[in-house]
Protein backbone atom coordinates (compact mmCIF):
# COMPACT_ATOMS: atom_id res chain seq x y z
CA UNK A 1 0.00 0.00 0.00
CA UNK A 2 2.72 2.43 -0.86
CA UNK A 3 1.76 4.96 -3.47
CA UNK A 4 4.07 7.25 -5.33
CA UNK A 5 3.08 10.13 -3.08
CA UNK A 6 4.03 8.11 -0.06
CA UNK A 7 7.43 7.33 -1.50
CA UNK A 8 7.97 11.01 -2.15
CA UNK A 9 6.97 11.77 1.42
CA UNK A 10 9.43 9.20 2.71
CA UNK A 11 12.23 10.70 0.63
CA UNK A 12 11.42 14.10 2.03
CA UNK A 13 11.47 12.71 5.55
CA UNK A 14 14.85 11.13 4.97
CA UNK A 15 16.07 14.55 3.89
CA UNK A 16 15.02 16.10 7.17
CA UNK A 17 16.49 13.23 9.14
CA UNK A 18 19.80 13.61 7.29
CA UNK A 19 20.44 17.02 8.83
CA UNK A 20 19.65 15.65 12.28
CA UNK A 21 22.06 12.79 11.76
CA UNK A 22 24.80 15.10 10.49
CA UNK A 23 24.42 17.41 13.49
CA UNK A 24 24.49 14.56 15.96
CA UNK A 25 27.49 12.92 14.32
CA UNK A 26 29.47 16.17 14.25
CA UNK A 27 28.83 16.76 17.92
CA UNK A 28 29.77 13.17 18.75
CA UNK A 29 32.90 13.53 16.64
CA UNK A 30 33.96 16.65 18.59
CA UNK A 31 33.28 14.82 21.82
CA UNK A 32 35.26 11.82 20.64
CA UNK A 33 38.16 13.97 19.51
CA UNK A 34 38.38 15.67 22.87
CA UNK A 35 38.10 12.29 24.56
CA UNK A 36 40.94 11.08 22.37
CA UNK A 37 43.11 14.05 23.32
CA UNK A 38 42.30 13.56 26.99
CA UNK A 39 43.11 9.86 26.79
CA UNK A 40 46.24 10.63 24.89
CA UNK A 41 47.23 13.21 27.45
CA UNK A 42 46.88 10.62 30.18
CA UNK A 43 48.97 8.12 28.26
CA UNK A 44 51.68 10.71 27.62
CA UNK A 45 51.70 11.82 31.23
CA UNK A 46 51.84 8.22 32.44
CA UNK A 47 54.71 7.64 30.06
CA UNK A 48 56.56 10.62 31.48
CA UNK A 49 55.79 9.68 35.07
CA UNK A 50 57.07 6.17 34.61
CA UNK A 51 60.32 7.55 33.28
CA UNK A 52 61.09 8.93 36.72
CA UNK A 53 63.95 6.94 38.22
CA UNK A 54 64.37 6.22 41.89
CA UNK A 55 67.92 5.20 42.67
CA UNK A 56 68.27 3.06 45.77
CA UNK A 57 71.97 3.38 46.57
CA UNK A 58 73.38 0.44 48.49
CA UNK A 59 76.06 0.33 51.16
CA UNK A 60 79.46 -1.15 50.31
CA UNK A 61 80.33 -4.81 50.55
CA UNK A 62 76.92 -6.37 50.34
CA UNK A 63 76.60 -9.98 49.34
CA UNK A 64 75.40 -10.39 45.77
CA UNK A 65 72.73 -12.88 46.87
CA UNK A 66 71.37 -10.48 49.50
CA UNK A 67 71.17 -7.71 46.93
CA UNK A 68 69.28 -9.91 44.51
CA UNK A 69 66.97 -10.96 47.32
CA UNK A 70 66.39 -7.30 48.22
CA UNK A 71 65.76 -6.45 44.57
CA UNK A 72 63.14 -9.14 44.41
CA UNK A 73 61.41 -7.78 47.51
CA UNK A 74 61.36 -4.32 45.94
CA UNK A 75 60.02 -5.70 42.68
CA UNK A 76 56.93 -7.12 44.33
CA UNK A 77 55.97 -3.79 45.93
CA UNK A 78 52.75 -2.51 44.36
CA UNK A 79 54.20 0.87 43.50
CA UNK A 80 57.18 -0.55 41.65
CA UNK A 81 56.85 -1.17 37.96
CA UNK A 82 60.37 -2.44 37.38
CA UNK A 83 63.58 -2.77 39.33
CA UNK A 84 67.05 -3.04 37.86
CA UNK A 85 70.22 -3.98 39.69
CA UNK A 86 73.20 -1.84 38.71
CA UNK A 87 76.53 -3.17 39.99
CA UNK A 88 79.41 -0.88 40.98
CA UNK A 89 81.10 -1.87 37.76
CA UNK A 90 78.08 -1.00 35.63
CA UNK A 91 77.60 2.31 37.43
CA UNK A 92 81.19 3.21 36.70
CA UNK A 93 80.81 2.33 33.06
CA UNK A 94 77.67 4.44 32.73
CA UNK A 95 79.37 7.33 34.48
CA UNK A 96 82.49 7.02 32.39
CA UNK A 97 80.47 6.97 29.23
CA UNK A 98 78.44 10.03 30.14
CA UNK A 99 81.38 12.04 31.51
CA UNK A 100 83.80 10.75 28.91
CA UNK A 101 86.35 10.39 31.64
CA UNK A 102 88.19 7.33 32.91
CA UNK A 103 88.06 8.39 36.56
CA UNK A 104 88.84 4.91 37.88
CA UNK A 105 92.16 5.15 36.19
CA UNK A 106 92.80 8.39 38.11
CA UNK A 107 91.31 7.47 41.45
CA UNK A 108 92.45 3.85 41.33
CA UNK A 109 89.24 2.76 43.00
CA UNK A 110 85.51 2.92 42.21
CA UNK A 111 83.66 5.37 44.50
CA UNK A 112 80.26 4.68 42.97
CA UNK A 113 77.92 2.51 44.98
CA UNK A 114 75.93 -0.34 43.59
CA UNK A 115 72.27 0.56 43.22
CA UNK A 116 68.83 -0.74 42.40
CA UNK A 117 67.04 1.60 39.99
CA UNK A 118 63.27 1.67 40.33
CA UNK A 119 60.60 2.81 37.90
CA UNK A 120 57.22 3.41 39.48
CA UNK A 121 53.69 2.98 38.26
CA UNK A 122 52.24 6.30 37.16
CA UNK A 123 49.66 6.57 39.92
CA UNK A 124 52.36 6.22 42.64
CA UNK A 125 54.51 9.11 41.44
CA UNK A 126 53.00 11.79 43.67
CA UNK A 127 55.51 13.39 46.08
CA UNK A 128 53.73 11.98 49.12
CA UNK A 129 53.70 8.46 47.73
CA UNK A 130 57.36 8.70 46.86
CA UNK A 131 58.18 9.98 50.36
CA UNK A 132 56.33 7.04 51.90
CA UNK A 133 58.05 4.59 49.61
CA UNK A 134 61.38 6.13 50.52
CA UNK A 135 60.72 5.67 54.23
CA UNK A 136 59.80 2.02 53.69
CA UNK A 137 62.86 1.25 51.65
CA UNK A 138 65.23 3.09 54.03
CA UNK A 139 64.23 0.68 56.81
CA UNK A 140 66.44 -1.89 55.12
CA UNK A 141 70.01 -1.87 56.48
CA UNK A 142 71.55 -2.38 53.07
CA UNK A 143 70.32 0.96 51.83
CA UNK A 144 72.62 3.94 52.08
CA UNK A 145 70.34 6.53 50.58
CA UNK A 146 67.72 7.09 47.93
CA UNK A 147 68.19 9.62 45.14
CA UNK A 148 65.65 11.11 42.77
CA UNK A 149 64.93 14.43 41.10
CA UNK A 150 62.53 15.92 43.62
CA UNK A 151 61.80 19.16 41.76
CA UNK A 152 61.14 17.34 38.52
CA UNK A 153 58.56 15.13 40.20
CA UNK A 154 56.90 18.08 41.89
CA UNK A 155 56.64 20.32 38.85
CA UNK A 156 55.60 17.50 36.57
CA UNK A 157 52.78 16.53 38.86
CA UNK A 158 51.60 20.12 39.20
CA UNK A 159 51.61 20.70 35.46
CA UNK A 160 49.90 17.47 34.59
CA UNK A 161 47.25 18.08 37.22
CA UNK A 162 46.45 21.49 35.76
CA UNK A 163 46.36 20.18 32.23
CA UNK A 164 44.10 17.24 33.03
CA UNK A 165 41.79 19.45 35.10
CA UNK A 166 41.42 21.87 32.18
CA UNK A 167 40.79 18.97 29.81
CA UNK A 168 38.23 17.46 32.15
CA UNK A 169 36.30 20.72 32.48
CA UNK A 170 36.44 21.11 28.72
CA UNK A 171 35.14 17.60 28.21
CA UNK A 172 32.31 18.15 30.68
CA UNK A 173 31.33 21.44 29.03
CA UNK A 174 31.36 19.94 25.58
CA UNK A 175 29.29 17.04 26.83
CA UNK A 176 26.61 19.35 28.18
CA UNK A 177 26.71 21.47 25.02
CA UNK A 178 26.40 18.37 22.86
CA UNK A 179 23.38 17.11 24.77
CA UNK A 180 21.72 20.51 24.47
CA UNK A 181 22.52 20.71 20.77
CA UNK A 182 21.32 17.22 19.93
CA UNK A 183 18.24 17.74 22.03
CA UNK A 184 17.49 20.95 20.16
CA UNK A 185 18.02 19.39 16.76
CA UNK A 186 15.65 16.55 17.52
CA UNK A 187 13.12 18.89 19.03
CA UNK A 188 13.15 21.01 15.89
CA UNK A 189 12.74 17.97 13.69
CA UNK A 190 9.76 16.86 15.75
CA UNK A 191 8.25 20.32 15.92
CA UNK A 192 7.12 19.91 12.33
CA UNK A 193 5.29 16.75 13.36
CA UNK A 194 3.33 18.27 16.21
CA UNK A 195 0.02 18.36 14.34
CA UNK A 196 0.52 14.80 13.23
CA UNK A 197 1.07 13.79 16.83
CA UNK A 198 -2.04 15.69 17.92
CA UNK A 199 -4.15 14.03 15.24
CA UNK A 200 -2.89 10.62 16.26
CA UNK A 201 -3.98 11.38 19.80
CA UNK A 202 -7.41 12.49 18.68
CA UNK A 203 -8.10 9.20 16.94
CA UNK A 204 -7.40 7.31 20.14
CA UNK A 205 -3.78 6.27 19.86
CA UNK A 206 -2.01 5.86 23.18
CA UNK A 207 1.09 7.86 23.95
CA UNK A 208 3.37 4.86 23.76
CA UNK A 209 1.93 3.80 20.40
CA UNK A 210 2.57 7.24 18.95
CA UNK A 211 6.01 7.41 20.50
CA UNK A 212 7.25 4.03 19.25
CA UNK A 213 7.97 4.85 15.59
CA UNK A 214 9.57 8.14 16.55
CA UNK A 215 11.84 6.44 19.05
CA UNK A 216 12.72 3.72 16.57
CA UNK A 217 13.79 6.34 14.06
CA UNK A 218 15.61 8.17 16.85
CA UNK A 219 17.62 5.08 17.73
CA UNK A 220 18.41 4.35 14.09
CA UNK A 221 19.51 7.97 13.63
CA UNK A 222 21.65 7.66 16.76
CA UNK A 223 23.33 4.52 15.40
CA UNK A 224 23.98 6.12 12.01
CA UNK A 225 25.35 9.26 13.66
CA UNK A 226 27.63 7.18 15.90
CA UNK A 227 28.95 5.24 12.92
CA UNK A 228 29.68 8.46 11.04
CA UNK A 229 31.34 10.02 14.09
CA UNK A 230 33.45 6.91 14.73
CA UNK A 231 34.51 6.88 11.08
CA UNK A 232 35.54 10.52 11.22
CA UNK A 233 37.43 9.99 14.45
CA UNK A 234 39.20 6.90 13.14
CA UNK A 235 40.17 8.83 10.02
CA UNK A 236 41.58 11.71 12.03
CA UNK A 237 43.56 9.36 14.30
CA UNK A 238 44.88 7.50 11.27
CA UNK A 239 46.02 10.71 9.62
CA UNK A 240 47.47 11.91 12.92
CA UNK A 241 49.53 8.74 13.20
CA UNK A 242 50.87 9.25 9.72
CA UNK A 243 52.05 12.72 10.64
CA UNK A 244 53.33 11.89 14.12
CA UNK A 245 54.45 8.23 14.05
CA UNK A 246 55.15 8.24 17.80
CA UNK A 247 51.42 8.02 18.28
CA UNK A 248 51.29 4.53 16.81
CA UNK A 249 53.24 2.84 19.55
CA UNK A 250 51.27 4.40 22.33
CA UNK A 251 47.98 3.74 20.59
CA UNK A 252 48.64 0.05 20.07
CA UNK A 253 49.45 -0.42 23.72
CA UNK A 254 46.12 1.06 24.60
CA UNK A 255 43.86 -0.61 22.10
CA UNK A 256 41.35 -1.41 24.82
CA UNK A 257 41.26 2.17 26.02
CA UNK A 258 40.62 3.52 22.54
CA UNK A 259 38.18 0.75 21.79
CA UNK A 260 36.15 1.83 24.76
CA UNK A 261 36.28 5.42 23.54
CA UNK A 262 34.54 4.33 20.35
CA UNK A 263 32.15 2.25 22.42
CA UNK A 264 31.27 5.26 24.56
CA UNK A 265 30.63 7.40 21.47
CA UNK A 266 28.36 4.69 20.13
CA UNK A 267 26.37 4.22 23.30
CA UNK A 268 26.21 7.96 23.89
CA UNK A 269 24.95 8.65 20.38
CA UNK A 270 22.12 6.16 20.75
CA UNK A 271 21.20 7.15 24.29
CA UNK A 272 21.14 10.89 23.65
CA UNK A 273 19.11 10.49 20.47
CA UNK A 274 16.72 8.10 22.18
CA UNK A 275 16.23 10.18 25.28
CA UNK A 276 15.84 13.47 23.40
CA UNK A 277 13.27 11.95 21.07
CA UNK A 278 11.40 10.58 24.04
CA UNK A 279 11.34 13.97 25.75
CA UNK A 280 10.38 15.89 22.63
CA UNK A 281 7.51 13.57 21.72
CA UNK A 282 6.33 13.61 25.30
CA UNK A 283 6.29 17.38 25.20
CA UNK A 284 4.02 17.40 22.16
CA UNK A 285 1.87 14.63 23.57
CA UNK A 286 1.13 16.74 26.60
CA UNK A 287 0.55 19.98 24.75
CA UNK A 288 -3.01 21.17 24.26
CA UNK A 289 -4.04 21.76 20.70
CA UNK A 290 -4.22 25.52 21.15
CA UNK A 291 -0.58 25.67 22.19
CA UNK A 292 0.52 23.99 18.97
CA UNK A 293 0.20 27.10 16.84
Amino acid at each position, binding site marked *: *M*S*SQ*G*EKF*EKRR*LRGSYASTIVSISLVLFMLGLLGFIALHGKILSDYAKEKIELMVLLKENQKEADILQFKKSLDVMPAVKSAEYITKQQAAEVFAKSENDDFIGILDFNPLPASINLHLHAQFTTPSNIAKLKRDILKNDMVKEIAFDKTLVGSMNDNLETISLVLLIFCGLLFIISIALINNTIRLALHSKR*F*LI*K*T*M*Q*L*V*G*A*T*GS*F*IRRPFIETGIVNGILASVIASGLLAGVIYLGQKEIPDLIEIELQNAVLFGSLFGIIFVLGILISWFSTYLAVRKYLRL*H*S*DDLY
Partner: protein
Amino acid sequence: MANLIHLEKVTIYQSGNSILADVSIEMEPGEFVYLIGKTGSGKSSLLKTLYAELPIVEGIGVIANFNLNTLKRKEVPMLRRKLGVVFQDFQLLTDRNVYNNLLFVLKATGWKNKTEIDARIKEAFDKVGMWEKRNKMPHELSGGEQQKVAIARALLNHPEIILADEPTGNLDPDISDDIMQLLFEISKAGCAVLMATHNYQLLEKYPSRILKCEDHKVIDSKIQSNAEPTESEAILAADHGPDPVIDQDILPANDSEPPMSSEEYILSND
Protein backbone atom coordinates in the same frame (compact mmCIF):
# COMPACT_ATOMS: atom_id res chain seq x y z
CA MET B 1 -30.22 2.95 28.68
CA ALA B 2 -27.99 5.61 30.10
CA ASN B 3 -27.60 8.83 28.22
CA LEU B 4 -24.68 9.07 25.83
CA ILE B 5 -23.78 12.53 27.01
CA HIS B 6 -24.61 13.87 30.40
CA LEU B 7 -23.34 17.31 31.32
CA GLU B 8 -24.53 18.86 34.54
CA LYS B 9 -23.79 22.47 35.49
CA VAL B 10 -20.46 22.35 33.69
CA THR B 11 -18.28 25.42 33.40
CA ILE B 12 -15.75 25.35 30.59
CA TYR B 13 -12.53 27.30 30.83
CA GLN B 14 -10.20 28.08 27.99
CA SER B 15 -6.78 29.28 29.22
CA GLY B 16 -8.22 30.63 32.43
CA ASN B 17 -11.29 32.37 31.00
CA SER B 18 -14.71 30.94 31.52
CA ILE B 19 -16.20 30.35 28.06
CA LEU B 20 -19.40 28.59 28.94
CA ALA B 21 -21.03 28.39 32.35
CA ASP B 22 -23.72 26.22 33.84
CA VAL B 23 -23.95 23.91 30.83
CA SER B 24 -26.38 21.04 31.23
CA ILE B 25 -26.90 18.77 28.22
CA GLU B 26 -28.33 15.33 27.74
CA MET B 27 -27.90 13.42 24.52
CA GLU B 28 -29.26 10.01 23.67
CA PRO B 29 -27.84 7.29 21.42
CA GLY B 30 -28.56 7.84 17.74
CA GLU B 31 -29.50 11.51 18.14
CA PHE B 32 -28.48 14.14 15.61
CA VAL B 33 -27.80 17.46 17.29
CA TYR B 34 -26.51 20.74 15.93
CA LEU B 35 -24.29 22.99 17.97
CA ILE B 36 -24.47 26.54 16.76
CA GLY B 37 -23.26 29.94 17.88
CA LYS B 38 -21.03 32.74 16.76
CA THR B 39 -17.30 32.35 16.38
CA GLY B 40 -15.76 32.34 19.83
CA SER B 41 -19.01 31.46 21.54
CA GLY B 42 -17.54 28.22 22.81
CA LYS B 43 -18.72 25.58 20.35
CA SER B 44 -15.27 24.15 19.84
CA SER B 45 -14.48 24.39 23.53
CA LEU B 46 -17.58 22.40 24.34
CA LEU B 47 -16.57 19.73 21.82
CA LYS B 48 -13.03 19.73 23.17
CA THR B 49 -14.41 19.16 26.63
CA LEU B 50 -16.35 16.19 25.32
CA TYR B 51 -13.30 14.57 23.77
CA ALA B 52 -11.23 15.35 26.86
CA GLU B 53 -8.95 17.90 25.30
CA LEU B 54 -10.13 20.46 27.85
CA PRO B 55 -10.60 19.44 31.48
CA ILE B 56 -13.85 19.96 33.32
CA VAL B 57 -13.20 22.29 36.21
CA GLU B 58 -16.70 22.66 37.57
CA GLY B 59 -19.71 20.43 37.17
CA ILE B 60 -20.21 16.82 36.21
CA GLY B 61 -19.57 15.34 32.78
CA VAL B 62 -20.12 11.81 31.50
CA ILE B 63 -19.75 10.72 27.89
CA ALA B 64 -20.07 7.14 26.60
CA ASN B 65 -19.79 5.89 30.20
CA PHE B 66 -16.53 7.76 30.78
CA ASN B 67 -16.53 10.15 33.69
CA LEU B 68 -14.79 13.28 32.44
CA ASN B 69 -14.17 14.51 35.97
CA THR B 70 -12.03 11.60 37.00
CA LEU B 71 -10.58 10.68 33.60
CA LYS B 72 -6.83 10.04 33.78
CA ARG B 73 -4.40 10.91 31.02
CA LYS B 74 -3.95 7.23 30.27
CA GLU B 75 -7.68 6.68 29.85
CA VAL B 76 -8.14 9.48 27.33
CA PRO B 77 -7.23 7.26 24.33
CA MET B 78 -9.79 4.68 25.49
CA LEU B 79 -12.49 7.35 25.54
CA ARG B 80 -11.51 8.61 22.10
CA ARG B 81 -11.91 5.13 20.65
CA LYS B 82 -15.59 5.36 21.50
CA LEU B 83 -15.86 8.73 19.80
CA GLY B 84 -15.32 9.74 16.23
CA VAL B 85 -13.94 13.23 15.83
CA VAL B 86 -14.25 15.18 12.56
CA PHE B 87 -12.72 18.60 12.03
CA GLN B 88 -13.16 21.54 9.72
CA ASP B 89 -9.56 21.10 8.53
CA PHE B 90 -9.87 17.29 8.22
CA GLN B 91 -6.65 16.60 10.19
CA LEU B 92 -5.59 13.60 8.20
CA LEU B 93 -2.08 12.25 8.66
CA THR B 94 -0.43 14.07 5.79
CA ASP B 95 2.58 11.79 5.58
CA ARG B 96 0.72 8.66 4.39
CA ASN B 97 -2.00 7.70 1.94
CA VAL B 98 -5.58 7.59 3.08
CA TYR B 99 -5.67 3.81 3.38
CA ASN B 100 -2.77 4.01 5.79
CA ASN B 101 -4.52 6.83 7.61
CA LEU B 102 -7.27 4.41 8.48
CA LEU B 103 -4.80 1.61 9.05
CA PHE B 104 -3.04 3.74 11.65
CA VAL B 105 -6.25 4.11 13.64
CA LEU B 106 -6.88 0.38 13.70
CA LYS B 107 -3.27 -0.44 14.54
CA ALA B 108 -3.34 2.20 17.26
CA THR B 109 -6.45 0.67 18.74
CA GLY B 110 -4.94 -2.78 18.90
CA TRP B 111 -6.09 -4.52 15.74
CA LYS B 112 -3.78 -7.32 14.63
CA ASN B 113 -5.53 -9.56 12.09
CA LYS B 114 -4.71 -8.40 8.56
CA THR B 115 -7.92 -9.64 6.91
CA GLU B 116 -10.14 -8.19 9.64
CA ILE B 117 -8.32 -4.87 9.34
CA ASP B 118 -8.72 -4.86 5.59
CA ALA B 119 -12.41 -5.71 5.84
CA ARG B 120 -13.07 -3.00 8.41
CA ILE B 121 -11.24 -0.38 6.36
CA LYS B 122 -13.20 -1.36 3.25
CA GLU B 123 -16.42 -1.16 5.21
CA ALA B 124 -15.62 2.38 6.39
CA PHE B 125 -14.49 3.52 2.93
CA ASP B 126 -17.60 2.03 1.34
CA LYS B 127 -19.82 3.98 3.72
CA VAL B 128 -18.39 7.23 2.40
CA GLY B 129 -17.81 5.97 -1.14
CA MET B 130 -14.05 6.46 -1.12
CA TRP B 131 -12.70 2.91 -1.55
CA GLU B 132 -11.52 3.66 -5.09
CA LYS B 133 -9.29 6.47 -3.85
CA ARG B 134 -7.68 4.57 -0.99
CA ASN B 135 -4.17 4.87 -2.41
CA LYS B 136 -4.23 8.65 -2.76
CA MET B 137 -2.30 10.96 -0.50
CA PRO B 138 -4.49 13.41 1.44
CA HIS B 139 -3.17 16.38 -0.54
CA GLU B 140 -4.19 14.69 -3.78
CA LEU B 141 -7.84 14.75 -2.72
CA SER B 142 -10.35 17.59 -2.81
CA GLY B 143 -11.63 19.06 0.44
CA GLY B 144 -14.87 17.12 0.27
CA GLU B 145 -13.02 13.88 -0.38
CA GLN B 146 -10.67 14.53 2.50
CA GLN B 147 -13.62 15.16 4.77
CA LYS B 148 -15.18 11.89 3.65
CA VAL B 149 -11.96 10.12 4.52
CA ALA B 150 -11.98 11.83 7.91
CA ILE B 151 -15.54 10.62 8.46
CA ALA B 152 -14.57 7.12 7.38
CA ARG B 153 -11.74 7.31 9.88
CA ALA B 154 -14.16 8.42 12.58
CA LEU B 155 -16.44 5.49 11.77
CA LEU B 156 -13.74 2.84 11.91
CA ASN B 157 -14.16 1.76 15.50
CA HIS B 158 -17.97 1.86 15.33
CA PRO B 159 -18.17 4.82 17.69
CA GLU B 160 -21.19 5.65 19.78
CA ILE B 161 -21.02 9.29 18.85
CA ILE B 162 -19.39 11.44 16.22
CA LEU B 163 -18.27 14.90 17.28
CA ALA B 164 -18.00 17.07 14.20
CA ASP B 165 -16.45 20.53 14.50
CA GLU B 166 -17.74 22.51 11.51
CA PRO B 167 -17.23 19.61 9.12
CA THR B 168 -18.60 21.63 6.19
CA GLY B 169 -16.82 24.84 7.08
CA ASN B 170 -14.25 24.55 4.30
CA LEU B 171 -16.48 23.01 1.67
CA ASP B 172 -18.68 24.41 -1.08
CA PRO B 173 -22.46 24.00 -0.75
CA ASP B 174 -22.84 20.93 -2.99
CA ILE B 175 -20.16 19.04 -1.14
CA SER B 176 -21.61 20.22 2.18
CA ASP B 177 -24.87 18.59 1.16
CA ASP B 178 -23.04 15.33 0.53
CA ILE B 179 -21.40 15.47 3.92
CA MET B 180 -24.65 16.35 5.68
CA GLN B 181 -26.51 13.47 4.09
CA LEU B 182 -23.67 11.21 5.09
CA LEU B 183 -23.82 12.37 8.69
CA PHE B 184 -27.58 11.99 8.80
CA GLU B 185 -27.32 8.47 7.45
CA ILE B 186 -24.78 7.70 10.11
CA SER B 187 -27.07 8.92 12.86
CA LYS B 188 -29.90 6.92 11.29
CA ALA B 189 -27.75 3.84 11.64
CA GLY B 190 -27.58 4.45 15.37
CA CYS B 191 -24.44 6.51 15.89
CA ALA B 192 -25.20 9.84 17.50
CA VAL B 193 -23.83 12.96 15.84
CA LEU B 194 -23.07 16.25 17.52
CA MET B 195 -22.18 18.76 14.86
CA ALA B 196 -20.94 22.28 15.38
CA THR B 197 -21.74 24.61 12.52
CA HIS B 198 -22.55 28.19 11.69
CA ASN B 199 -24.09 27.36 8.36
CA TYR B 200 -27.72 28.21 9.12
CA GLN B 201 -28.88 27.04 5.70
CA LEU B 202 -28.01 23.51 6.70
CA LEU B 203 -30.26 23.84 9.74
CA GLU B 204 -33.18 24.67 7.52
CA LYS B 205 -32.43 21.97 5.01
CA TYR B 206 -31.65 19.24 7.51
CA PRO B 207 -33.59 20.22 10.62
CA SER B 208 -32.87 18.57 13.93
CA ARG B 209 -32.37 19.38 17.55
CA ILE B 210 -30.21 22.46 18.11
CA LEU B 211 -27.93 23.57 20.91
CA LYS B 212 -26.98 27.23 20.75
CA CYS B 213 -23.99 28.77 22.49
CA GLU B 214 -24.71 32.36 23.40
CA ASP B 215 -23.70 34.70 26.21
CA HIS B 216 -21.69 31.98 27.94
CA LYS B 217 -24.71 29.68 28.00
CA VAL B 218 -25.95 26.75 26.00
CA ILE B 219 -29.60 26.93 25.04
CA ASP B 220 -31.31 23.68 24.06
CA SER B 221 -34.01 23.79 21.38
CA LYS B 222 -35.53 20.64 22.86
CA ILE B 223 -36.23 22.37 26.14
CA GLN B 224 -36.98 25.70 24.50
CA SER B 225 -39.46 24.26 22.04
CA ASN B 226 -41.39 22.64 24.85
CA ALA B 227 -41.67 25.99 26.57
CA GLU B 228 -42.28 28.30 23.66
CA PRO B 229 -42.64 26.39 20.42
CA THR B 230 -43.92 29.23 18.32
CA GLU B 231 -40.98 31.46 18.94
CA SER B 232 -38.39 28.83 18.12
CA GLU B 233 -40.19 27.97 14.94
CA ALA B 234 -40.07 31.57 13.94
CA ILE B 235 -36.37 31.72 14.54
CA LEU B 236 -35.57 28.81 12.32
CA ALA B 237 -37.68 30.26 9.60
CA ALA B 238 -35.96 33.60 9.99
CA ASP B 239 -32.83 34.41 8.11
CA HIS B 240 -29.48 33.39 9.56
CA GLY B 241 -27.15 35.87 11.15
CA PRO B 242 -26.77 37.16 14.65
CA ASP B 243 -30.19 36.05 15.69
CA PRO B 244 -31.42 37.10 19.10
CA VAL B 245 -32.98 34.03 20.62
CA ILE B 246 -33.14 30.41 19.69
CA ASP B 247 -33.78 27.63 17.43
CA GLN B 248 -35.74 24.49 17.83
CA ASP B 249 -36.62 20.98 17.00
CA ILE B 250 -38.35 20.98 13.69
CA LEU B 251 -40.80 18.32 14.77
CA PRO B 252 -41.71 19.06 18.37
CA ALA B 253 -43.97 16.02 18.43
CA ASN B 254 -41.01 13.76 17.82
CA ASP B 255 -39.00 15.11 20.71
CA SER B 256 -38.50 11.70 22.18
CA GLU B 257 -36.98 10.38 18.98
CA PRO B 258 -35.12 13.15 17.22
CA PRO B 259 -33.16 10.84 14.90
CA MET B 260 -36.42 9.66 13.44
CA SER B 261 -37.24 13.15 12.44
CA SER B 262 -34.05 13.48 10.48
CA GLU B 263 -34.56 10.12 8.88
CA GLU B 264 -38.00 11.05 7.74
CA TYR B 265 -36.66 14.28 6.52
CA ILE B 266 -34.06 12.65 4.34
CA LEU B 267 -36.49 10.12 3.01
CA SER B 268 -38.96 12.77 2.07
CA ASN B 269 -36.18 14.78 0.54
CA ASP B 270 -35.12 11.92 -1.65
